[in-house]
């Protein structure tokens, strides 16, 4: 058994796949460096991300998968579930093993697994499209913090860019310490240094635009009054809005 250690990027993963075919490795596992556990028995090899190698794998995948197939692999990779690389590898190997398109073979465990993980990632993407709550700052930028279960910012970028084309906004993933900033032209990935500017809860509120507090209060009022107490159904409520999301939801704070 050999473990290939890669940098956690999609390009790195594809490079690892290239190496596996190049060196005809069979007993192999792929692991991102930050999840590596000390183990004395398995051989290890570090993989350096390589655009040329990754592109060759990508080209092969494009030939064998339907349109959107590579995008699906990419989205599943963003789940960052420990050990998921090996399932993706299984899927890719199955795809390369035949000339048929295998993506509809739901009897195959890798195809089914991919479809399952995709469902999780897409649900999280959809949740973020719903649960982002912008706060208007004094400088006119709309700011939102999020802590998604999976690394979905790259998947929601286009949605927000299309929708909020006429305002500047930032969506920041606190857990993964990066965000998206849209400046009315382009949306780019950014990293903010909260430690130096002491951006705690208080300073955020003091830098609100003047009508921000009113609209937050109005939204809370609305949320309270649109509820029908005679139909109370806490279980259903929690199923749709799990507690872990509450701290970023204006109406639930």
């Amino acid at each position, binding site marked *: 058994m050999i473990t290939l250690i890669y940098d956690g990027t999609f390009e790195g993963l594809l490079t690892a796949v290239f190496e596996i075919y190049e060196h005809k490795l069979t007993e192999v596992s792929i692991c991102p460096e930050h999840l590596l556990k000390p183990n004395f028995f398995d051989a290890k090899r570090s993989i350096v991300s390589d655009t040329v190698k990754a592109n060759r794998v990508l080209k092969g995948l494009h030939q064998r998968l339907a349109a959107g197939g590579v995008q699906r692999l990419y989205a599943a990779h963003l789940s960052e579930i420990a050990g998921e690389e090996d399932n993706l590898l299984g899927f890719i190997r199955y795809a390369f093993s035949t000339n048929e398109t295998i993506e509809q073979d739901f009897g195959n465990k890798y195809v089914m697994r991919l479809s399952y993980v995709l469902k999780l990632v897409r649900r999280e993407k959809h949740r973020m499209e719903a649960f982002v709550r912008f706060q208007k700052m004094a400088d006119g930028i*709309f700011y939102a913090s999020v802590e998604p279960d999976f690394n979905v910012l790259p998947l929601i970028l286009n949605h927000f860019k299309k929708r909020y084309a006429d305002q500047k906004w930032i969506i920041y993933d606190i857990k993964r310490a990066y965000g998206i900033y849209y400046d009315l032209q382009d949306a780019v990935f950014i990293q903010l240094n909260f430690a130096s500017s002491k951006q705690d809860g208080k300073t955020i509120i003091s830098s609100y635009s003047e009508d921000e507090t009113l609209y937050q209060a109005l939204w809370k009022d*609305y949320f309270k009054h649109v509820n029908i107490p*005679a139909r109370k159904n806490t279980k259903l409520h929690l199923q749709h809005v799990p507690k872990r999301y509450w701290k970023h939801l204006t109406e639930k704070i």
Partner: protein
Amino acid sequence: MNDERIREKLSILADAAKYDVSCASSGSKRKNHNKGLGDASNGICHTYTEDGRCVSLLKILLTNHCIFDCAYCVSRKSNDIKRAAFTVQEVVDLTMNFYRRNYIEGLFLSSGIFKDADFTMERLVRIAKKLRTEHKFNGYIHLKSIPGASDELMREAGLYADRLSVNLELPTEAGLKLLAPDKNQKDMIKPMNFIKNEIILRKEEKTLFKKAPLFAPAGQSTQMVIGATPENDRQILYTANHFYNSFNLKRVYYSGYVPVSNDNRLPGLSTAVPMVRENRLYQADWLMRFYGFNVREIVDQNNPHLDLDIDPKLSWAIRNLQHFPIDINKADLQLIVRVPGIGVESAKKIVSGRKFGKLNWEHLKAMGIAVNRARYFIVCNSQDFERRELSGTKIKQFILAESQSKYLKQKPNQLSLF
């Protein structure tokens, strides 16, 4: 002072609008084409109230002043409640500012009827127009059409709104006579017909001229209150079916009556909201729209009510055991979707997956099929299948015994300790 007043108005007018159950924000094709604000090409539920209903749109009344006295409605003339009215600008500001913060998908605007139908409708249209033209708002707008409004206003409404709806209010004309003597079904059917024809007309226009304007791209819907009048499920579903067929409706909403009055024509104030019944009606509605069921298969003369214990598909299946078991590896898609425990998505997975090899129970489980229900109705690539000749009642008992339906207060056949 001003802040307090707007907060009070929002509380009153959201309270008054919340019994309208429609909240869909999907089905439109409006894109952010002018680098303005918003995009209504997909629907999102931004949050859920504590009763578990989705909040997708800012759903408010323009005013809860009303000249009508419909017994089931909180805003009825004779009800002693606080009244309020928004100005056009206030609704526009609320919508824009809520939308900018990603609270909502758009606006659902309805109104009590003040003065007359046209006067009210004109205000609603003016708000939609202002949002679209002055503020480049491309979010979703659902306007409630006021029965009796003129065709010109309805036409203008369709140019700015994504969806228009006219509420049927009650499933039958008789119910309407009893509880809403000021209204009649004819007044509701007229605007529905107008919208339907206009949508067809604009579609034809669109095939000729690409730039022809959108007209209510998300279609029209309606709503009826259930449980306020004594109609049975058969009457309700037949009405829904009729309106789906005759007016190309996108949705019919069923709103379980929430007691708001001690009027003796209505169920008492302590009556529970018929939530299970409402849920079964929606399931039946889905069977008609997505599963290829005819309304006569779901309810008929002998079964005028939906079974509250089990869903209508299972209920149909145990009444029609002659169709089962079906072979999952051979049957047509149309038959597979009729199996209890298999949804449309899973059925498609089965049909795609079986081309690569025969499917067994493990495969089906992995695809997300509720095997505990489906196993009585199917065979697959396995020696293991239901061999007993079970009656419908028996199957129902077995399934109920192992289900944990949230609706069952007490598990059937549960052994008591003492």
